[in-house]
C-alpha cells in the first residue's frame, strides 16, 4: 500500500493555519473562572440561600403601590429633563470636538487635544462623574445633567470621529478641487457622508442618557434615582416596584421614539432632507424599486 500523502508531498497537509495560542488562552480562561468562583466563595449552598431570599423579596414587591404619584411624576420628569438637557448639550459639544479629532481632516496639533478631551470624558463611569459633580456644584439635577453631558461628549465624540475617519476622501477631494473654503468642504463633502450615522449615535445616546438619568439620583445628582434609593432603604418595596415599572415605561417610550427618528433619517437622509422629510421618504421608495 502506498502512502497517499506521498503523491501530494508538494502540497501542505493542512490548508488551515492552526495556532496554539488561542487554545491555550481558552484553557487559561476556564481555569480562571473556576479559580474566581473559589475565591468569591460562590458555592451551591450560597446560591440556594440567595434564591430563597430573592423569592421573599419579589413577593414583597407586589402589588406595586402607586399612591405617591406626585413624588413619582416629579422624579421622572426631572430624569427626563436631565436626559434631554445632557443629550442636547453633549451632542452640540461633541460635534466640534469629534471633528477636530478626525485625523484625516485635521493636523496633529488639533487632533491631539481633541482626542485627550474624548479619552478623559470616557475614562469614568457616569456615576463616578456624577459624584464628582455633586461634590463640585452641589446636590441636584445640575450635577446629573453635567455628568451625563460629559458621558455624551465622550461617546458621540469618539463615534463621530470614527465615522469621519471612514469617509471617502475622493468626494472630499472633488469639493476641494472646486476651490471651496474648508467650511464649505465640510458642509458638502464631509457632513453628507456621516449625517445618517450621526443621527444613529444621537438617538442611541438619548436612549442611554434616559437610562442613566434614572440612576444618577442614587448619588444625589437629581432624578427618580434618589426616590428609588430612599424607597429601598425604607423597605417600601411596593413603591420600589411602582418606580421600576414607571422607569421601564419611560425607557420603552424613549426607545419607540428613537426607533422612529432612526427610521426617518438613517440610510436615506442628507442634510437638506431634514427639512423635507416627505422627499426623503419618496426617495427611499424609489431606491427600493431599483
Amino acid at each position, binding site marked *: 500500500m502506498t502512502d497517499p500523502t506521498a503523491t501530494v508531498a508538494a502540497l501542505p497537509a493542512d490548508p488551515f493555519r492552526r495556532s496554539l495560542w488561542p487554545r491555550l488562552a481558552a484553557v487559561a480562561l476556564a481555569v480562571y473562572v473556576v479559580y474566581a468562583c473559589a475565591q468569591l466563595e460562590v458555592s451551591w449552598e450560597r446560591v440556594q440561600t440567595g434564591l430563597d431570599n430573592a423569592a421573599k423579596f419579589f413577593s414583597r414587591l407586589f402589588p406595586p403601590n402607586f399612591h405617591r404619584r406626585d413624588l413619582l411624576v416629579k422624579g421622572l420628569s426631572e430624569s427626563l429633563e436631565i436626559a434631554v438637557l445632557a443629550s442636547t448639550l453633549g451632542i452640540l459639544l461633541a460635534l466640534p470636538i469629534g471633528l477636530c479629532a478626525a485625523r484625516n481632516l485635521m493636523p496633529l496639533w488639533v487632533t491631539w487635544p481633541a482626542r485627550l478631551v474624548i479619552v478623559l470624558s470616557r475614562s469614568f463611569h457616569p456615576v463616578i462623574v456624577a459624584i464628582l459633580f455633586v461634590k463640585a456644584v452641589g446636590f441636584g439635577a445640575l450635577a446629573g445633567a453635567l455628568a451625563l453631558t460629559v458621558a455624551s461628549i465622550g461617546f458621540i465624540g469618539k463615534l463621530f470621529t470614527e465615522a469621519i475617519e471612514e469617509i*471617502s476622501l*475622493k*468626494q472630499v*477631494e*472633488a*469639493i*476641494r*478641487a*472646486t*476651490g*471651496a*473654503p*474648508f*467650511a*464649505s*468642504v465640510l*458642509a*458638502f*463633502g464631509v457632513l*453628507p*457622508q456621516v*449625517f*445618517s450615522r450621526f443621527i444613529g449615535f444621537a438617538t442611541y445616546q438619548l436612549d442611554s442618557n434616559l437610562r442613566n438619568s434614572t440612576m444618577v439620583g442614587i448619588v444625589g445628582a437629581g432624578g427618580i434615582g434618589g426616590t428609588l434609593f430612599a424607597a429601598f432603604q425604607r423597605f417600601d418595596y411596593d413603591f420600589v416596584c411602582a418606580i421600576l415599572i414607571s422607569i421601564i415605561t419611560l425607557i420603552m417610550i424613549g426607545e419607540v421614539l428613537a426607533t422612529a427618528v432612526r427610521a426617518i433619517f438613517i440610510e436615506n437622509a*442628507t*442634510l*437638506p432632507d431634514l427639512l423635507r422629510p416627505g*422627499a426623503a421618504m419618496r*426617495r427611499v421608495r*424609489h*431606491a427600493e424599486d*431599483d
Partner: protein
Amino acid sequence: MLTLKNLSKSYVAGTPVLQDVSLEISARGITAIIGASGTGKSTLIRCINRLVEPSSGQILFEGADLARLSGRALRHARRHIGMVFQEYNLVERLTVMENLLSGRLGYVPAWRAWRRKFPPEDIHRAFELLDVVGLAGFANQRADALSGGQRQRVGIARAVMQEPTLLLADEPTSSLDPKTSVEIMELLANIAHSRKIPVLVNMHDVELARRFADRIVGMAEGRVVFDGPPAQLTDEMLTTIYGGQGWLH
C-alpha cells in the same frame, strides 16, 4: 494659457514619477495625454490643480505660478480649473442639483453654503447645464441612484458650473463602457469648443484619443516622448510610448 516648466514629482525620494515635464497648453480643444499605466499621467493632471504637490518646477496659469500658491490664493486659482474624475467623485448622498451647485462653492461664502443659499443665477445655470448634459429632470435624484455614464455627466456639469478657463479630466472614460465613453468624450469636445477653453484629458484608449483629441501628448516613464497632432501618432511612436509591439494589430 497654461505653461508647465520643468515639472517634477517624486512620491518617494529618488524614484521620480514626473521628470522635467514642460508643456504649453494654449490651444482650445482637447489635448489628450496618453501613456501606459503608472507613467505619471494622473500625477501630472493632479499637480496642475495641486491635489498633488509637485516636487519642483513651475505651473504658470493666468499670471501666477500655481506651484507657489497656498491658502486663499490657491483656492481662488482652483475656481477657474474644473476637474472631472475617473470615479466621478460625486458626493453620493447629495442630489444631482446639490452636486452641480457644489461647483459654485468657491464663489459662495461658507455661511451661505451651509444654509444652501445659492444665487438664483447659479441655480438657473445648473438647470440649463443639466439640459446640456442630457439629465433634465434628474435634479432631485440622489447621485448614488445614477448609472456610471449619468454620474460622469453630473461630474462634468459640476466642473462646468465653475465657469472654468481650463478643464482637467483624469481618465474620465476608464470606468465606462465603449459607447458611453464615446458619448462622454463628445460631451467634453462640445464643451471645449462651445466654451472655447482648453480641455486636458488623461486616457489610455489610443483610438478614443485619436478620434477626439486636437493634440496628443505621449508620456513614458514620467517624461513627454511625443507631442503633436493625432495624424503624426505613428505605430513607431506608439511603441516608444507604450513599449513592445505585440499589442498593435
